């Protein structure tokens, strides 16, 4: 883990402090990291072959599905 300094205006600092006071983030550092992850996700999204949920469903529609839904169908007798 590296430590980096970030220059912030008063307004930016107040905004981040408010997020922390509202309980949305544990610290200013965590709030900044959340924004960073959002940017990283956006960049990553550009490499993904789908733009919408219907495109995702269409992409996987012909896939031979071993498991139906989220779990293996099972029955508990006990």
């Amino acid at each position, binding site marked *: 883990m590296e430590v980096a300094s970030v220059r912030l205006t008063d307004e930016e600092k107040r905004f981040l402090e408010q997020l922390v006071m509202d309980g949305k983030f544990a610290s200013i550092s965590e709030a900044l990291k959340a924004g960073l992850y*959002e940017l990283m*996700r*956006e960049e*990553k*999204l550009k*490499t*993904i*072959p*789908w733009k919408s*949920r219907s495109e*995702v*469903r269409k992409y*996987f*529609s012909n*896939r*031979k*599905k*071993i*498991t*139906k*839904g*989220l*779990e293996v*169908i099972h029955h*508990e007798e006990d």
Partner: protein
Amino acid sequence: MKKIKVYLESSALWNLYYEEKGSELVEYCLNQPQFECLTSIWSQLEIERGIKKRENQNELTSEEAENLQIFIETDNSQLINKKKLTISPILDDYIVTAKKYIRNYNLYASDALHLASATIRRCKSILVDDYHFKRLDTSIENNEGIKIFSTAQKIEDLKAQFSI
């Protein structure tokens, strides 16, 4: 306008991205202003596991699994930002209520936690896939005052239920 709260169980959310059938009703709820959709933070873990399991079974390549995970996470964030979906936390009283549901309805822990999240958040309906629909006892509807819908049901059924 008072919104109708609909709880999306993780299997219903999964239908939104991966299954050919069952996405229509979920899409409808998310896109109609009359509905307020909720799910539990627990759904995120169940979906994550659903993706990993398919990767383990070679149903998905690791690249597809990673792409799907990123897409779902980002799409969920966008739905939350657009106020189309709310993520419910898991608090102590949710666990207490879920325990009661396990005892009363012989539910699996995960089903009980989803049902507890839905009833505590005062949802009028819970959307589940067809497999879960068949597993949930109809006495739940009468005792807990929540309508259980299968994602395989028609939009008209949901409209009729809430007189839309």
